[in-house]
């Protein structure tokens, strides 16, 4: 089943603005944490005089990290005004107001000029964009020729997903709409980008599952007995199946780095091993 666009947006907004969900997922929503973000930022190859856009930036932590790592200016863009306000406050507190800015905006209609930025960072969010073709086209549009997109995302092979996780699909929209890695790569190529790097990082997702499990257990242990523990128990029951799907490669996490061709010519695309695309 596929959720409608409105449902997905509502689900994500609810998840990321619900303190309990935020707490379950930890302060960094995307798998791989700071280390994987750093890898993506470095892959952009943005010079200090350049500009990086962080699309679906959430609370802007990676936006700040991008500015600090590259020495360039960074623009964080997110659909949620609350997140943007919080990100602005955090950047001001960190004394980075000069090098980082934040805009409310939709990934399917980015508030940036054509060729406005040297690099685009997009972490764990393409799966939540209802119109992925349009979003991919937008990510490509705002890049300067020769600029790179560094993207991380959930990947899933829905046909092989066990029945027990179909329930999870229903309430975790990003899983419901995650694509297999192969079609993710095709999507970016279809937007005219030359794919340079494709890597699976399933371990990073395993760590997120582990964190969610640990936090569900903590919540169960901490909450009083008369509280409704049903939801926590149901969440914990899904953990073994999720773990198994991850081991079988049915679920996963991946990064893709792709470059906008220079002068309309096709960028050289590194040949990809078929095993990478499962």
């Amino acid at each position, binding site marked *: 089943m596929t959720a409608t666009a409105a449902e997905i947006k509502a689900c994500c907004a609810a998840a990321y603005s619900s303190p309990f969900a935020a707490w379950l997922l930890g302060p*960094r929503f995307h798998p791989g944490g700071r280390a994987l973000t750093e890898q993506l930022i470095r892959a952009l190859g943005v010079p200090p005089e350049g500009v990086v856009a962080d699309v679906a930036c959430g609370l802007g932590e990676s936006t700040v990290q991008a500015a600090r790592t590259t020495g360039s200016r960074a623009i964080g863009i997110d659909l949620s005004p609350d997140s943007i306000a919080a990100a602005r406050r955090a950047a001001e507190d960190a004394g980075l107001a000069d090098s980082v800015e934040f805009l409310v905006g939709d990934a399917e209609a980015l508030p940036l000029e054509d060729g406005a930025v040297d690099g685009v960072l997009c972490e764990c969010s393409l799966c939540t964009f209802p119109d992925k073709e349009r979003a991919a086209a937008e990510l490509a549009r705002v890049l300067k020729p020769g600029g790179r997109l560094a993207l991380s995302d959930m990947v899933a092979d829905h046909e092989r997903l066990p029945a027990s996780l179909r329930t999870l699909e229903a309430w975790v929209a990003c899983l419901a709409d995650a694509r297999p890695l192969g079609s993710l790569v095709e999507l970016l190529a279809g937007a005219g980008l030359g794919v340079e790097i494709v890597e699976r990082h399933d371990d990073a997702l395993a760590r997120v599952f582990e964190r969610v499990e*640990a936090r569900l257990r903590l919540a169960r*242990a*901490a909450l009083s007995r008369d509280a409704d523990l049903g939801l926590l128990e149901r969440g914990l029951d899904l953990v073994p199946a999720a773990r198994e799907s991850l081991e079988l490669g049915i679920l996963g996490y991946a990064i893709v780095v792709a470059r906008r061709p220079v002068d309309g010519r096709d960028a050289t695309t590194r040949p990809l091993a078929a095993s990478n695309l499962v």
Partner: protein
Amino acid sequence: MRRNATAARVDRPEVFLELTKSICPLCKRVIDAEVNVRDNRVIMRKRCPEHGPFEALVYSDAELYTAQLRFNKPGTLPLEFQTEVRDGCPLDCGLCPEHKQHACLGIIEVNSSCNLDCPICFADSGHQPDGFALTLEQVSFMIDRFVAAEGEPEVLQFSGGEPSIHPRIIELLELARGRGVRVVMLNTNGLRLARDPRFAADCARVGAHVYLQFDGFDRRTHLAIRGRDLRAEKERALAACEREGLSVTLVAAVEKGINEHEAREIVRLGVSHPAVNSVVFQPVTHAGRHLVFDPLERLTNADVMKLVAAQLPDWFRVDDFVPVPCCFPNCRSMCYALVDSDGVIPLTRLVEVEDYLDYVSNRVLPDPEIRVALERMFSASATPGAEAALLACESCGIDVPAALAGMREHAFLLAVQDFQDPYTLNVRQLMKCCVEQITPDGRLIPFCAYNSVGYREQVRAALAGVEVSPVVPNAVPLQPLLAETPYGSRTMA
């Protein structure tokens, strides 16, 4: 000159990591030392102009050793130093103004006598004809010096000898509490707690935390490490602590080939016993009195973490242990866990601890208060309960933390601490040590310097009014050179 074309150049069999200073294990003179990696093992090599070369294993996992370096927190200055720099580290202790860190934990050895004569004792204590017991006035002066250096000291541990047989130990504990020391610990073998119900009650009354020597459950372990089967006494001591509401840390000395297999049951007791909130594993310190050992085959922190992970695979992994940033991060690793109906939840599964305690990348953190809370937890002065602040601030605004107040009794702390000996002493680590031995003349001497460099013998000689032979390690390669001291340790023949 042309090289002979047939002679192939050969690589050294090791990776050179650092050049540092150490001491000769025999004459204790300060000498240069190299630290190299060989077969993923970190090995110190040094040469004394008089006694020749020495090699010792420092850390059995080079990858872990090097990865830990980024946890190196900038040190905090104490309010005052006690000595001046004259001869250089480690001869000016302490603390001299070159020292990189304040004291998280102070130790006062109140006596040199003990009601046991363990084959393993870094303090070289026992039923001995000479010795000392500090007076109330002496201890009071030492606490004054500690307070002068620290302001509000975190932890003061009373040790010995066996501090529980000091006739005024309860008054001493009370004295420290009265001076504002946050946690006052009694480092004990537990015999008096087991035998004297009034003593446990008195400890509880003065609010002491019990740091209980506990090496395992096998009779053979007790005989090898303590010289006596103390199992019944340990059980009674723990029962007394539970009865009186005392909180307990189990402290296991781990020696190769003796009690490595007991890690699992020690941790399980720690998690399940109502009085126990923490377990510390210490690879046996080859200072003072100890069994014959091979310096290249000694246990290190990495081995102990791997033992725990191998014996309790459903509970812990090696990466659940976090290097402690306040001291040099190779010295101590700690793991916090919350206990629930399914077992334990290591804190590292809840929070990306490493992201907050990486000091080398030196970045701006979105939530600095989490780092502060983590620093309080991952320190030599940490006790369980410290995690409450973290969980509260890490998850503020949610209903869960309000309920976490009730979690306190479920928190559990597991630490692994390798102390240096005359073979492994490295001034790089020593200069940032945060565990200090307080001497009656008011110095704060890093624990490993105190036990290895000769300070212990000097202090003991001065206090007991007897000559004390310089102690040297009972190491395999030194056997032909050694003679036994009156206390059972070894000295140069």
